């Protein structure tokens, strides 16, 4: 888990060696850089919310009729609202959606259904892992936005991400409250899921 985080930090630090941008002419202007940042943020967030939506759908498909059904349903409804918001932001900021959306769709459903088949504690553990990564990811985005984006023009985007980060943290706590830590192989499961999520975030930012 620590190694994956270090690895990803190294990958994201290689800004000076952007090969593709050296094929264009010049250093981008500040507005250009902000635009690219926002484009990237909206793309990865839309892909992430779609994946989260599908994860909960997978969990509901297996555990819908058990006693955690209503909890999962509640979290699923919030994720649907998040997805709708990002779908609205894409034309507003002229962002490009990820081309691998069908992949995130399938992978999310598989993850949700797979962990739910391992039991409801495992499903909660999956929720905890995913929401932890997402919370950290939204915090990173907020830091980037604070640094590079115009605070007044993009206030809506910043507020949206703040609110969503708070929602995701709440889901994380809900997962923990529902005995996530009693899942079989809790540490291994959560580490694997966290690494997968971080890889997914990395790919969705670019493709």
């Amino acid at each position, binding site marked *: 888990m620590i190694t994956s985080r270090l690895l990803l930090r190294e990958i994201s630090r290689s800004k000076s060696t952007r090969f*593709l941008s050296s*094929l*264009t*002419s*010049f*250093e981008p*202007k*500040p507005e250009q850089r902000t635009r690219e940042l926002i484009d990237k943020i909206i793309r990865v967030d*839309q892909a992430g919310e779609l994946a989260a939506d599908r994860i909960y759908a997978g969990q509901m498909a297996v555990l819908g009729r058990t006693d955690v059904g209503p909890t999962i349903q509640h979290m699923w409804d919030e994720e649907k609202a998040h997805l709708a918001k990002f*779908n609205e932001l*894409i*034309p507003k900021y*002229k962002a*490009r*959606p990820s*081309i691998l*959306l*069908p992949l995130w769709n399938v992978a999310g459903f598989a993850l949700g259904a797979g962990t739910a088949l391992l039991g409801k504690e495992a499903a909660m553990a999956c929720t905890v892992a995913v929401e932890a990564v997402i919370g950290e990811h939204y915090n990173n985005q907020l830091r980037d936005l604070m640094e590079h984006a115009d605070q007044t023009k993009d206030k809506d985007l910043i507020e949206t991400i703040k609110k969503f980060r708070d929602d995701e943290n709440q889901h994380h706590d809900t997962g923990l409250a529902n005995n996530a830590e009693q899942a079989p192989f809790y540490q291994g499961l959560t580490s694997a899921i966290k690494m997968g999520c971080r890889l997914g975030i990395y790919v969705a930012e670019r493709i």
Partner: protein
Amino acid sequence: MERLLTLRVGTSRLNRAVNLCQLNSNKLTFERYATNGQPKETIDPLPKNTMKLTGSENVRPVYGALASAAETKKDTNTSDKTSANQDVPFQSESDLRDNVLRESLKFVEELGWTIDAIRAGIRASNQSSTIEGLFSSGYDLVEYFQRDANSKMSAYMKEQMKKGEIQGTRLLIDSLKYRLGLVIPYASTWGQAMAQGALPQNSMRSWKSILEFSSEAWYGIGDTSTDINWYTKRLVLATVYKSAEVYMLQDQSQEKLDTMDFLERRLHDFQTLGSLRNTMSKSLSDTAQITSGIFSVIRNLTSRR
């Protein structure tokens, strides 16, 4: 003036331009005093209507060689001991490039989309020829033209949307025709421009500008697709438009009216194809149901009950 060789030691192009200016300044001084030892004219290094330096991008009119050397020096933040350092007009690198390229467009007809046209543009906009270091090839001119035409097209679309007379696909067709109309004055040399775009070293930039054009066109009519349709719409529109440009290359009609008709016909085809695709995607979910129905039939037929 021949191009001086400079060492590319990881410095930006502007730094290199500065170095060239400093090296060249002796040469300029010599020329200025070339006529029998008398100065040709008194060149005022500080133009009269200077303004205070306010920081980021201020577009200022271009001045002669010495002034631009002073500008570029200020731009790179070297410590300038002269009193000029507070009042030197500031022009960012990209605005400078855009100004020169705009001037260069006038020379495209006779000199083609080449570095020669850019050189002529530099002379016409009264800049030092060392600015040439900011441009790599004739493709810079093509890219500027595309960018400029795309922004004109999105301004046109915004205006039409505001007026509200034309809507939807009709607006899309009109905007594409408008965009093609911006290219038609350069039709005689457009083949060269397209060929330059196809070169491997320019392919990434030309892809980017085509996709940007396509994206602008769709966002201009308020497209809100957020999945794979985003990509298919843009790719199909770009293909249609590019085919119209290719058609234009061999069109002999008056004012290229045939090309406009061609574009209109292709877009109508695309429209019907688009509605076909919508029915297809609906039928995909039906297909899933039909398939599962067939499976359950087979299962029932082959089970031993």
